[in-house]
């Protein structure tokens, strides 16, 4: 059971809460307190819109322990509209073919069970094809 490590990151995981650098305005995800662009201290919270585009993707067929029940699943690097990239599963693909550049949006989904059947459920961001282009 690793509850503290999941609990500590709930804001980032549930809602893509990162940081914005007060010095150079770079948006930062995951939060890291030191701006990767200008090196200044950056602790101001920033909630990302959850909109982005697929930078690349792959299909996980041999899933690691704890993820077997979801295999096969697609993992992507998503370039968020605000700048940073994030690694996340794509979900609700249906018959849709994933393509580099495809617009996607964040949803909060169940990532795994900490301990099967007994442990806490870990929720976090995934991305799906955008439902409405206008939003």
């Amino acid at each position: 059971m690793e509850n503290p490590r999941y609990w500590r990151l709930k804001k980032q995981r549930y809602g893509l809460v990162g940081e914005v650098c007060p010095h150079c305005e770079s948006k930062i995800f995951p939060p890291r307190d030191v701006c990767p662009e200008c090196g200044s201290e950056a602790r101001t919270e920033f909630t990302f819109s959850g909109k982005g585009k697929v930078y690349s993707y792959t299909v996980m067929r041999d899933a690691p322990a704890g993820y077997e029940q979801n295999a096969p699943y697609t993992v992507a690097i998503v370039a968020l509209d605000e700048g940073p990239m994030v690694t996340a599963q794509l979900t609700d693909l249906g018959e849709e073919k994933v393509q580099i550049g495809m617009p996607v949006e964040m949803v909060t989904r169940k990532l795994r069970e900490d301990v099967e059947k007994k442990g806490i459920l870990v929720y976090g961001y995934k991305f799906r094809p955008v439902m409405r282009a206008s939003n």
Partner: protein
Amino acid sequence: MSDIVIAGIGQIPVGEHYTIGLREMGVRALVQALHDSGDLKPDALYIGNLLSSMISHQSNLGALFTDYARLGGIESYTAEAAGASGAAALRLGVLAIRSGQANTVAVLGVEKWSDLVRSEAEAAIMQEMDYDYESIPGLTSTGQAGLIMQRYLNDYDLPPDALNGFAMLAHANGAHNPCSIFKNQVSPESYARSGMLCDPLNMYDGATYADGAAALVLTRRDLLPKNFPHPVIRVSGSAASSDSLSWHDRHEPMAFNAAARAVSSAAEHAGILPGQVSLFELDDPFSIYAALTLEACGLADRGKAWQMARDGEFAIHGRLPILTMGGCLARGNPIGAKGIYQVAEAVTQLRGAAGANQVTNARSALTLSLGGPASTAIAHVLERE
């Protein structure tokens, strides 16, 4: 020129060693290397390993191996740099001798992989990535490679089998390496038929993780035994560099900057250009990493390494031989031990003892070991006197 020499090498075959554990594997490689060096007595033992604490439930490997190899109380501990752990241990040894703290150093790369079922072992190796932001979303190291291979094929508008040249050359060379796990040849047809691991990365693009142990004995040139039976191989360059754990924290993921930095500073240290070496034991846990390394180091134009591999430019008798004993793709990937295998293989070439795989007139070799997707990169230059 440096006066640090590699006096001894030892390797056990890479594979699934069900009958022996972590300690027996490591001790066998160490004993071999010490014997090969003319029974030098090391003042320190540095160990490269990634997974023993998870897979073998064993840490404090320094105490374990100095005891079991009867090295009597010398300084010893582990260097961990994911897949570059072995190379990190070697660099510790180089620094220890260069600083004057040690005269003779044994370096051991050891990894026990086969004690866990695959999904659990995959979960263990995920710790080399960004656990919170890559592993928790369900990515593995193989998935990381699949992600960047997809982007590579897309950006250069390449067919899905573009990278098959690396598996073909690795297997051609690995077939003659007594320590390699695979002895089969790969053809374009068998590559095309191969099952997917992490699309578009197929089973020939990803090296099989396996057990392995390899060891080196380093010493000062003036301390070599009289009647030392081998050609003298010097370590003339050593450098390490780092980058972010994950692709998503890099502006240009395909740049492989740490690989480029480590290679150029090790070469500069040795006073040569990377393209001048007789052979390059680069790191190929995945074929795409071989391509990105060659391109990052200026040994192939961007988006062209795959074509050069297909054209035979990296074959044993090509312009710049790579993976001369099969690399990870054919020898197998013993993770924290692979950096020592690479150097042992390069020494074999420079000694002129590589048999069917001998690179003609091999005088110098470059080795590069990667931890993660070039998150850590450690390079060495070896030269024959």
